[in-house]
């Protein structure tokens, strides 16, 4: 759990008391969608299971489909049962939890919806209200403005009004800025929580603990010792029915611009002065602003787009689609710590396995005393931060093979979350929903971070938009197009396809 919010309560006991969610209602726009069913409701149910929500906690779902409160409850009941991860389902708990679930049908473009929501919120009379935009991105601006027009956006003396916005936050730098302006016309920045669920993952948070809680790694965490960094987010599945959405986004927008650049910022940022929301976010933002912006002529050298064979046959996908289902890029960070160290980032669909990890490859020993068994210099030390599926940390180093002579073999020293902390970590959505309700923005992205990460990918996006790729260019079950390997090979590096 994160550091508890500071309290002037003389009875406070941050070591023992859970952070408490104040009396509030959450309004979910797009409540009939996948995100609500698969992630939001299971996470809220799990928080209730752990008794971290007040008894009066209310959920108001919205979508266009006409439905009664009971029908919506039944639908959510099935979803939570189906999608609750690593946790049993308790019917008795559900029956008390679901009593405070309500549903208001209506079209997001219709002012009547907001009048109906206002009536419902007045009726519920919860002092604090959280709006969760789980809609198509094109609705973010209109919904926020409609909330403002209905007089539901501003925090009052009674309590706060906050908004959570799902990615993608804009589809390029200009649209992100325009959306920010629209959102800020209703909600001040401190009430805007842009969610990036990668930052809510325990293992991503653990990067901060690993770097700044230990004395032995941070001295090595710089260009003198680190040769390069590889960040991989691979999926074995394809677009799975999301073809229409995905072909507008692509891997670069869907994964690299947001999740993976945020992960990179967490890996590479300077130590914050304190573990507080603004200090943490300042350092992440500074790092993202330090990412070297590619010149147009460098894009072909430092980035690779791919599309798997079969994507164009997916439902809802243009048969001539130029969408990238694989993207890889080399980023450099223009600061003293990282100058000249390549950060290779790749993400793709239909790759050989589902894995997300960060591999930090250290420089080789300055003078080679020993050779590997194949007669080549031994492989350098590698630190792997595994985000999913087997959360943990591994350090690869060399060890003498038992017996006569001095034969060296790489061995791995592993830390596995399960073996040290038991069986369950909270899901990213549990952590992030809890955070927004207690007002902790540490793991949410700020406007300047969003804009800085758009700036970092803009040259690639612009170049790729102008090009016509010879897609498809990789087979399902492979690690992407050959150009991706070539991009690293030019620097004498090689992807870890572990």
């Amino acid at each position: 759990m994160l550091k508890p919010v500071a309290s002037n309560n003389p009875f406070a006991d941050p070591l023992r008391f859970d952070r408490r969610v104040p009396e509030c209602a959450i309004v979910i726009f797009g409540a009939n969608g996948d995100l609500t069913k698969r992630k939001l409701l299971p996470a809220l149910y799990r928080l209730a299971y752990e008794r971290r929500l007040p008894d009066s906690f209310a959920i108001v779902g919205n979508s266009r489909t006409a439905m009664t409160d009971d029908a919506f409850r039944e639908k959510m009941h099935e979803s939570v049962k189906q999608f609750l991860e690593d946790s049993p389902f308790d019917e008795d708990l559900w029956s008390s939890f679901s009593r405070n679930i309500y549903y208001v049908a209506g079209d997001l473009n219709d002012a009547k919806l907001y009048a109906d929501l206002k009536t419902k919120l007045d009726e519920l009379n919860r002092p604090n209200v959280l709006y969760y935009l789980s809609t198509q991105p094109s609705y973010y601006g209109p919904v926020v403005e409609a909330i403002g027009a209905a007089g539901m956006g501003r925090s009052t003396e009674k309590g706060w009004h906050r908004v959570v916005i799902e990615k993608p936050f804009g589809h390029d730098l200009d649209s992100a800025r325009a959306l920010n302006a629209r959102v800020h016309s209703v909600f001040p920045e401190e009430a805007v929580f842009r969610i990036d669920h990668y930052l809510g993952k325990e293992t991503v948070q653990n990067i901060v603990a690993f770097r700044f809680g230990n004395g032995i790694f941070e001295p090595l965490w710089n260009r003198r010792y680190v040769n390069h960094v590889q960040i991989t987010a691979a999926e074995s599945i394809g677009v799975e029915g999301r073809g229409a959405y995905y072909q507008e986004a692509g891997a670069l927008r869907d994964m690299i611009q947001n999740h993976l650049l945020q992960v990179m910022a967490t890996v590479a940022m300077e130590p914050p002065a304190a573990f507080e929301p603004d200090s943490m976010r300042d350092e992440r933002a500074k790092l993202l602003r330090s990412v070297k912006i590619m010149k147009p002529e460098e894009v072909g050298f430092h980035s690779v787009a791919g599309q798997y064979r079969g994507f164009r046959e997916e439902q809802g996908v243009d048969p001539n689609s130029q969408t990238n289902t694989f993207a890889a890029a080399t980023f450099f960070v223009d600061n003293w710590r990282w100058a000249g160290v390549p950060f290779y980032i790749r993400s793709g669909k239909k790759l050989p396995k589902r894995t997300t990890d960060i591999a930090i490859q250290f420089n080789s020993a300055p003078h080679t005393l020993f050779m590997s068994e194949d007669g080549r210099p031994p492989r350098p030390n590698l630190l792997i931060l595994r985000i999913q599926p087997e959360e943990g940390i591994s350090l690869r180093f060399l060890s003498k093979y038992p017996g006569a002579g001095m034969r060296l073999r790489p061995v791995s020293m592993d830390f596995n979350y399960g073996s040290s902390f038991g069986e369950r970590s909270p899901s990213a959505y549990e952590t992030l929903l809890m955070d927004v309700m207690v007002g902790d923005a540490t793991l949410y992205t700020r406007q300047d971070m969003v804009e800085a990460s758009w700036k970092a990918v803009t040259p690639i996006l612009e170049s790729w938009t102008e090009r016509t790729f010879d897609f498809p260019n990789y087979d399902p079950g492979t690690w992407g197009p050959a150009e991706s390997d070539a991009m690293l090979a030019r620097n004498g590096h090689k992807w870890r396809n572990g």
Partner: protein
Amino acid sequence: MPATLVDPEKILKDLRKLWLDLGRENEVAGGVLRACGMTLVVATDNAADMDELRHLLGVLMHNHPARAIVLKLDGKAGLNATVFSQCWMPFGKHQQICAEGVEISAGFSELTHVAQLLLPLIVSDLPAVLWCRGPRIFSDRAFDPLLPLVQKIIVDSATVPDPYAAVAAVRDLRQQGRLVADLSWTKLTGLRELIASLFDEGTASNISSVRIFYGGDAPTVSALYLSDWMRRALPDAEVTLEQRGEGTRSIRSIVLVGDCEAILTRPDKATMEVHCGGRTRRSSMVLVSEETLMSEELSILGPDPVFDRILA
């Protein structure tokens, strides 16, 4: 069996064999995941509750995997040791997680030998915790040789007849520089959290006096801790402990006098009611199990500033 015949090297060898056997038995599933985050030494003088204790340890291991060393102090002379494992399949996973344990039978007079035996059995470089089940630690110095081996000592004063003596004993342990926890304090977490929430909500503002009413012939240790906690939190308020009613010792009600008079009562075992300004609020306050209390304590392995202030 004389103490010298229980060889820690032999126990460690048995543990290694245990893991090899577990690995072989679960070869198809990719072996088992060995889990260990600390050493938990549990001392019990009640042989009758061994089954319950084993079950409790099995549950505790899920969130606090440890090398468990159970000291069965049954009064009979002679040391004996066996090794065991606790395995569980996490929900939705396919590989078992296992924690290891050692069960040692000994007489109280042999605790000095046991301390020598424990030293090599404590997992290096990880925290070690001693949990003394039962009230004997409050009256018997025999446990003293064990105390320097661990970073934290967990006791339960609930069954100690003299609550004032129990608090004094816990205070004494703390003043010796040891990290100590008392499950009688841990039991108060839910109630204390409720009181803190009253402050957050403004129900308990400008408190000038606090009256804690207890039933039975004397306050419980929990009631003593609660009143001390109130005094530390509200140095300007008058805090009193008053007897109300016969029967078993327990906290019956609490009255916080401030901008409004908030009365906390417990109409049944699972509920707490707060009456204030003509309004009544009900909160569920289920009785917490020993495993929940222990789990809370095992998640705090460093100093506990709030409890430390009470023991100061």
